[in-house]
């Protein structure tokens, strides 16, 4: 069956450390994979999109990798800050890039302690 899984429901780290979140998928061939941030009671906010032919993408303190062989994406936040505390969702287009039918993981709740 098709699945998109974020292995950790919660991740607690110390301020200044690098947070690494994992997203795995099975039985999909996505053209791209995305990461979103969701704060309590709010809609998700788009962070980064990485395409199947890209190994790595960076945006400020964020870095995403995409391994289509392992069917896995890693999301890193370097020099983490308490303000980075939120739930992070990964998403992929289940139709291989057409129509934008995004399927989301359940999310990983990141807590950064000062």
């Amino acid at each position: 069956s098709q699945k998109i899984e974020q292995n950790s429901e919660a991740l607690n780290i110390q301020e200044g450390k690098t947070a690494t979140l994992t997203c795995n998928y099975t039985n999909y061939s996505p053209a791209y994979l995305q990461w979103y941030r969701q704060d309590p009671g709010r809609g998700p906010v788009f962070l980064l999109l990485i395409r199947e032919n890209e190994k790595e993408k960076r945006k400020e303190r964020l870095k995403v990798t995409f391994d289509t062989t392992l069917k896995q994406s890693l999301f890193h936040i370097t020099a983490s800050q308490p303000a980075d505390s939120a739930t992070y969702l990964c998403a992929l287009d289940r139709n291989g890039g057409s129509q934008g039918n995004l399927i989301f993981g359940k999310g990983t709740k990141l807590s950064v302690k000062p």
Partner: protein
Amino acid sequence: SQTIHQWPATLVQPVGSPLSLECTVEGTSNPNLYWYRQAAGRGLQLLFYSVGIGQISSEVPQNLSASRPQDRQFILSSKKLLLSDSGFYLCAWITRKGEAFFGQGTRLTVV
């Protein structure tokens, strides 16, 4: 710039009452629009999507329906709410690049 509006932010409705949630998009034409539901401890569940006026695709059988009366308007409805319809409902516009922009969400509590 493009924006997406969704209302109301919170709603408490009795079992058996009707529902109408509205979503509108500004700054774009012919958007692909989506309704998701997020239940506690669960991921975002895709309910409906629409690629144009009058075109609705349903993802899961349920007590809800959707309509697209205008290009930039997407409505989620129910004739009779169930307790299990409680949740956080999100409207989204997904661009041709695949990026999703979400509304503020509606917290629906059916009592």
